[in-house]
């Protein structure tokens, strides 16, 4: 038994009898096709789903179920997906117009690897395209960081960072009243509509950082 497994068993054991805890874990690992020796991206999410089935079956009280699952989710995040997340966080330079295509392709293949749906892939790739274009057009150079999120439901995080001039009149741009000749207002607003979380930090002469997160529905 690997270390994460025994820690998981320990947590389950706090809510379930020893026999039930073992059964929930064993069944979960088998059903989710998870090999704890070699954790893969997405393992934590699948395992959590299977463990949830078991816990809902063995624990009668809804609140107790949720308490138990919260602990398990927390644990999976730090023990299983933690290693994976490190591996799949990538930072890509955005310097030329060609990089827009390169970066969005990278985002798409990252989603593909994890097994996200085709519609989610297009959503993410489009958001990356918008953010990368903003960098090229307004700052010249910058980076795009991509990372998977081991949340429930799982998701992806895109960070666009540059040291450009910053976005003046941000509120106006985001409200849709402002129309740039190049279509930036639409790009940022479109991205915001497309994703689930959208944060933007910008200051004149300091650059811009946009953090967006999209989750599988």
């Amino acid at each position, binding site marked *: 038994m690997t270390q994460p497994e025994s820690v998981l068993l320990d947590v389950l054991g706090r809510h379930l009898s020893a026999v039930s805890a073992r059964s929930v874990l064993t069944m979960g690992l088998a059903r989710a096709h998870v090999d704890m020796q070699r954790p893969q991206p997405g393992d934590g999410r699948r395992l959590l789903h299977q463990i949830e089935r078991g816990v809902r079956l063995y624990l009668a009280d809804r609140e107790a179920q949720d308490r138990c699952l919260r602990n398990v989710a927390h644990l999976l995040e730090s023990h299983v997906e933690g290693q994976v997340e490190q591996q799949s966080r990538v930072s890509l330079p955005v310097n030329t*117009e*060609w990089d*827009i*295509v*390169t970066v*969005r*392709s990278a985002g798409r*293949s990252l989603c*593909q690897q994890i097994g996200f749906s*085709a*519609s989610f892939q*297009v*959503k993410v*790739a*489009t958001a990356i*395209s*918008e953010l990368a*274009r903003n960098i*090229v057009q307004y700052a010249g150079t910058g980076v795009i960081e991509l990372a998977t999120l081991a949340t429930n439901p799982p998701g992806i995080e895109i960070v666009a960072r540059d040291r450009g001039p910053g976005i003046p009149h941000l509120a106006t741009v985001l409200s849709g009243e402002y129309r740039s000749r*190049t*279509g930036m207002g*639409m*790009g940022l*607003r*479109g*991205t915001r*509509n*497309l994703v689930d979380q959208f944060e933007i930090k910008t200051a004149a002469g300091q650059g811009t950082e946009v953090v967006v997160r999209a989750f599988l529905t």
Partner: protein
Amino acid sequence: MHSGELHPQDVGRIPIIRLADNLVVSIQFSLSDRLVAQLKDDVTHAIDSSGALGLVIDVSGVDLMDSYISRTIRDIALVARLMGVLTVICGVSPLVAITLVEMGVDLKVVRSALNLDAALELLQDLRREAATRSTGQDTSA
């Protein structure tokens, strides 16, 4: 679904084909910004020199359309209309359509058709309609 995108450096220019009274632009790969901008110039030039009456933009090979690309397509349609040419876009993939709608992109000025045949048919209908309207024979419909 395309697994990888063709690098824009591999592609020089998007060909514009003359088909009867219409121009047909078929985009079979992912678009880079420069290619899109180039297309706008090329189409404007082709409309001017060919005297075509309609324009079809086939995007069946495009698996991603962001605000810049869709805006340029809209611009092309607006420019074409000022020059007396109607534009129909065809072959929009389901995922592209969903993304555009989710983003709130407005492509109403461009009519859509399911495929190239339907697009050419639609252009013919639109022209007939316009002709009927201008001669004032039928205003009830």
